[in-house]
């Protein structure tokens, strides 16, 4: 398939509703039409997402995928809310999920309809009122372990008139976006019941791409692609090489079947390079490196894959032979910018291991790294090839204090790159853990950490919101967060230079991206474990974020 051109599409204005309706209209039985050239998601209430909608790098009224667009920047082009008027922002509605603990979803909005997931349930909401238009209920799965037993779900992908979601037990569901009816259901992670899934899928061209969770539980990671129409598997890339394959020396015997490198967040995609960028988790077992000698490919990596075939183009490993649960599933953000005097296609990632990385995404070449964690004692630094130089602080039987800790210096919550300020914003966590290790056998039905990590009572964790100038390799500002909890909320930004995020005091907050100065906040009264987004209906801009088991939406009066 030829490369798809990257179309720059201007933000759509609401068109007047055209009505040609009467109930005498007969329905088409044909399944959703894919690849039709007719423009789609531009009439309010009319859901039909085409490739152009997905390829647009201008996020206007719609927010058609987990990160908004394929670049992973979480950058909204909407300009109605500004630093001058943001103080007037007010809550518009609250949606309460019926079947979930803490929501980690980023809603997808198309044509004024919002799609939300909570556990295995999906909902369509009127994005202006929060009213439920349909609800697809599916019981949560019993007998799951570790993270999968939390039944986390981060949202849907959409194409045509269909939405796609993963379930806690790693099924890919295809639902009719107009009714929530189940069209098909594919179980995609067989042979090990420690698999789970928490991510939103990623639609690329005519395929739906998924990963799994279970990287702490002895599963073998993969990225898999399914035909969006039929659900038939098209390719599967195993993130742990099998016997005889490149990298297999780290995986003696059948250790490769339990090596982790799961793929529990959506990747990003560059249509011009025809490449997807997908992060992998830590190795399994987490804390015992003795059973997995060497670098443990392809754990704690970003993988560059061909979306048509699943073939590996290149990889970059952030934390070779990781011993600290340093997943590399943070969003690999795609930026086109002049860097060191010439225009480049870059990949910027704030990694859980405490360092920021800048890569050339055409070939994976390492360009720069910068430590952002204030407390960091596992690496002396990053060498000229991008490889960390270990300090020798490793998990022991008695326990070793290592920073960043078990929860990571940052994590899956989203970063944002802003095209107006040219700054990269992300939330960090300053904390350390005491890591212990003991060799254990893998056992299905049990987590596979090979002992544990704990928080020292005298250690005070703190979040910081950071603004990073990757051109200069400098932090422009660093906002310490105050509160009793620590936030698991991501960051987004807008074309007016606003940076929206969830803070450590259970508040949704907006700051000035240039200075970090707080401009507005709202007490959602519940812990935030989700990343925010922005959309518009009838010319009105909204911000939405999940908190606790609720989803909040805000707009100007």
């Amino acid at each position, binding site marked *: 398939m030829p490369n798809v051109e990257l179309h720059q599409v201007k933000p759509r204005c609401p068109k007047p509703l055209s009505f040609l309706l009467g109930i005498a209209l007969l329905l088409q039985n044909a399944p959703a039409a894919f690849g039709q050239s007719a423009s789609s998601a531009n009439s309010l*209430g009319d859901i039909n997402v085409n490739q152009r909608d997905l390829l647009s790098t201008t996020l206007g009224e719609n927010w058609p995928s987990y990160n908004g667009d394929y670049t992973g920047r979480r950058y909204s082009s909407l300009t109605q809310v500004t630093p001058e008027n943001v103080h007037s922002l007010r809550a518009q509605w609250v949606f309460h999920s019926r079947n979930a603990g803490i929501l980690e979803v980023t809603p997808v909005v198309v044509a004024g309809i919002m799609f939300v997931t909570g556990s295995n349930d999906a909902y369509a909401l*009127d994005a202006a*009122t929060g009213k439920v238009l349909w609800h697809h209920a599916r019981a949560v*799965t019993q007998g799951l372990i570790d993270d999968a037993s939390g039944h986390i779900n981060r949202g849907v992908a959409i194409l045509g008139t269909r939405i796609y979601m993963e379930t806690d037990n790693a099924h890919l569901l295809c639902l009719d976006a107009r009714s929530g009816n189940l069209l098909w259901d594919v179980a995609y992670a067989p042979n090990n019941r420690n698999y789970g899934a928490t991510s939103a899928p990623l639609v690329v061209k005519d395929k739906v791409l998924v990963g799994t969770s*279970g990287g702490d539980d002895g599963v073998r990671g993969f990225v898999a692609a399914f035909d969006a129409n039929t659900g038939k598997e098209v390719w599967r890339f195993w993130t742990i090489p099998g016997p005889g394959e490149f990298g297999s020396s780290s995986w003696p015997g059948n250790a490769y079947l339990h090596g982790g490198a799961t793929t529990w967040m959506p990747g990003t995609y560059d249509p011009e390079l025809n490449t997807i960028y997908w992060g992998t988790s830590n190795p399994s077992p987490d804390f015992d490196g003795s059973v997995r000698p060497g670098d443990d490919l392809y754990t704690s990596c970003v993988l560059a894959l061909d979306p048509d075939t699943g073939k590996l183009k290149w990889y970059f490993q952030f934390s070779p032979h990781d011993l600290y649960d340093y997943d590399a599933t943070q969003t690999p953000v795609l930026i086109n910018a002049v860097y060191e005097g010439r225009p480049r296609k870059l990949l910027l990632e704030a990694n859980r291991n405490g360092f920021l990385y800048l890569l050339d995404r055409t070939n994976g070449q390492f360009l720069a790294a910068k430590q952002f964690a204030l407390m960091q004692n596992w690496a002396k630094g990053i060498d000229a090839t991008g490889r960390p130089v270990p300090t020798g602080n490793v998990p022991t039987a008695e326990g070793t204090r290592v920073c960043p800790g078990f929860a990571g210096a940052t994590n899956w919550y989203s970063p944002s790159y802003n095209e107006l300020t040219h700054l990269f914003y992300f939330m960090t966590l300053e904390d350390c853990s005491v890591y212990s290790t003991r060799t254990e056998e893998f056992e299905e039905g049990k987590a596979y950490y090979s002992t544990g990590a704990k928080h020292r009572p005298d250690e005070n964790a703190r979040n910081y919101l950071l603004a990073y100038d990757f051109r200069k390799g400098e932090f422009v500002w660093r906002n310490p967060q105050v509160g009793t909890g620590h936030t698991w909320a991501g960051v987004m930004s807008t074309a007016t230079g606003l940076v929206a995020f969830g803070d450590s005091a259970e508040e949704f907050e907006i700051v000035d991206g240039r200075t970090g100065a707080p401009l507005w906040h709202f007490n959602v009264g519940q812990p935030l474990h989700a990343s925010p987004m922005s959309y518009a209906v009838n010319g009105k801009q909204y911000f939405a974020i999940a908190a606790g088991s609720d989803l909040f939406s805000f707009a100007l009066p």
Partner: protein
Amino acid sequence: MKVLRSTILLTLATSLFPHSLYAQQNGTSSGQSLFSTNCAACHGSDGRGGERAPSIATLRRVVSLTDADLEAVVKNGQPSVGMPPFGYLGNQKVSDVVAYLRVLQGKGTVVKVTGDPQAGRAIFYGKAACTKCHMVGGEGGFIAADLSTYGDGLSPEAVRRAIIDPDRNLEPTSKVVEVYTLTGEHISGLLRSEDNFSISLQTEDGRFHLYSKTKIASVRHTSHSIMPTDYESKLTNKELEDLVSFLITTASTPHPSEPAAKKNRRNNGGN
């Protein structure tokens, strides 16, 4: 032959699990009295809903839960919607209540169908054109209810009645609503949500129409759906019987309901 086969299959399916059947029968009399003491005040003595709580005998999202899920709900309650926990009853009584609820839901009963489900399938997809609006197993339309599990545990008579007299017992979302806007437009569709300030309809092309009531001149709620009301004359008795048989047998093929949850939510939120 085929009629006989379906009956045999259903009977066989239940006799394959004599232990669970016995347990159910054993538990239901205790379950019945526990239900009337603890549940009926809100859910109604038939489980079909009361003033304070919804139907747990018929709502798809409740019926489709596994026993373990239902037991977890009974034990822990649903604080967000005001249902108290009944964990103090102990495990045995909780499973007795759930066993009785299954009886109210019509689960586990042997339904004898007298028509030919295969012929009924052909009518469903062909002559009766049900798939213009309804879906079974991912095939069909989207505007009306997904019938994949609809017929499970229903009597043939109840299904037949729903086909020939579709406007009895309509869900609000099945009713046609007419909206007249201040600019003179007229939209006719199915109600998806409504409050004092807004209304959402869905037209048969799948499009949602979302209105603030400030833009609306009038709303008329009809008491009919978009389902044809002439199936009694359009289909022969035999065809109706076959169609009913298809809807019941297709729904009783096991739909692997996912096992229930251990509500063990970690604080760091899910790899």
